């Protein structure tokens, strides 16, 4: 998946998160963070430099739609993408279980980083659903990763057949 595909993916995730889920599935909207899932997916599939930029962009897009300070999610997701991408170059994160772990830990880590940032500003941060969100992101992420891979595989096969 190239940069254009990632941009489309990000736009789709944003639309789904902010329009579909928030309007029709408020419970899922509260639990699932599609921006994080997209950021983790890009981190697993792309080099560190690219991943951190896309992570920052994804977070900033999320910031546009949330009430948090603009840049908080961008900061967190940038750092998160850089870390996961670095881990991905050393460990295999292609299997569902490591991906689930990356999503769960990524959710918790993002919350921790954001809490630290906001605490620096003297703001108290509480998220009683953070554990549930991490599990929900893990499950939803695994399912979406399968979907993304299938789309990416179909696109690669099409390109291969065109080339041959």
């Amino acid at each position: 998946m190239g940069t254009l595909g990632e941009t489309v993916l990000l736009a789709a995730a944003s639309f789904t998160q902010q329009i579909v889920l928030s309007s029709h599935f408020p419970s899922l909207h509260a639990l699932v963070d599609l921006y994080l899932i997209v950021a983790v997916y890009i981190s697993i599939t792309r080099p560190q430099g690219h991943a951190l930029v896309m992570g920052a962009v994804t977070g900033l897009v999320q910031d546009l739609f949330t009430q948090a300070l603009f840049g908080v999610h961008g900061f967190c997701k940038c750092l998160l993408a850089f870390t996961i991408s670095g881990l991905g170059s050393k460990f295999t994160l292609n299997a569902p279980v490591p991906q689930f772990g990356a999503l769960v830990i990524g959710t918790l880590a993002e919350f921790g980083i954001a809490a630290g940032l906001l605490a620096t500003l003297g703001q108290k941060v509480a998220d009683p659903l953070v554990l549930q969100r991490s599990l929900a992101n893990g499950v939803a992420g695994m399912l979406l990763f399968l979907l993304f891979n299938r789309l990416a595989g179909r696109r690669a096969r099409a390109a291969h057949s065109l080339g041959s």
Partner: protein
Amino acid sequence: MPRAPGPRLPTMIQVLLERKAPLLLFAVLFILLLVLSSQARNPEGASLLEALLFRVVTPAARAANVADGGLTRWAEGYVDLRLARVENLRLKEDLAVLRIDKQRWEAERHEYTRLLRLLNLGEMVAQPSVVARVVSRGQGIGANTLLIGRGSADGLAPNQPVIVPEGVAGRVIDVGPSTAKVQLALDPNSGIAGLSERTRVQGMVNGRGGSHLKMEYVSDLEDVQPGDRIVTSGLDRIFPPGLAVGTILHVEHGEGLVQSIDVEPAVDFSRLEEVLVLIGPPQGDP
């Protein structure tokens, strides 16, 4: 899930993205921090960037301060140690001087006490007197004599009594302008008219050349006992009456008409340092 290459990006940006990721991360995070900082301020009024820098810099500054403090304390400790060594030597010297001073002051205090007692003695005997310091002691055949630091210029004359607070010391036998020789009561040629304070039995107390005296010319019939205190009787017209001479140690009834009486002197002649010389007749005496 194969990693896709970054397509269609300018070479410089691609290199930056792939090889300088940490630097890029730092730059992106810094920009985001600036963005955040421009929006938010903590309760103390500091921006996020300031607060973060403060959080990062403060421990480092504190650690540097601690290290600097430790180094400074070490250096100060070393300097203090050197100074303490010098000061210690100086204090030891001062202490030595003070110890010598203390010994001198102690000696002066004892001297003052002795002189005070002699002055009190002079007032007690109601007789003109001078205090004289013992200059030297006799040796050999003249062992029972003293040389004192007063002479004819001070009114001293032969046969004047020499006393100390404990009792009779002797008499002046030779006088120079500024010194005089004293014959101690221990001298065999010395004789003091004495009596028993208890029974008023009289006799002559003479020296024996040793450390004891003997009381002679006491009748065998007289009552004298060991422990009786012997004082001057005044009959020799040298020593005023009532001065302590010694204490009877031993009484022996001899074959003759007199008793042999050993007397322990009241004065420790080996420790004489100052003496009182009675230079005139008793006041009120014609």
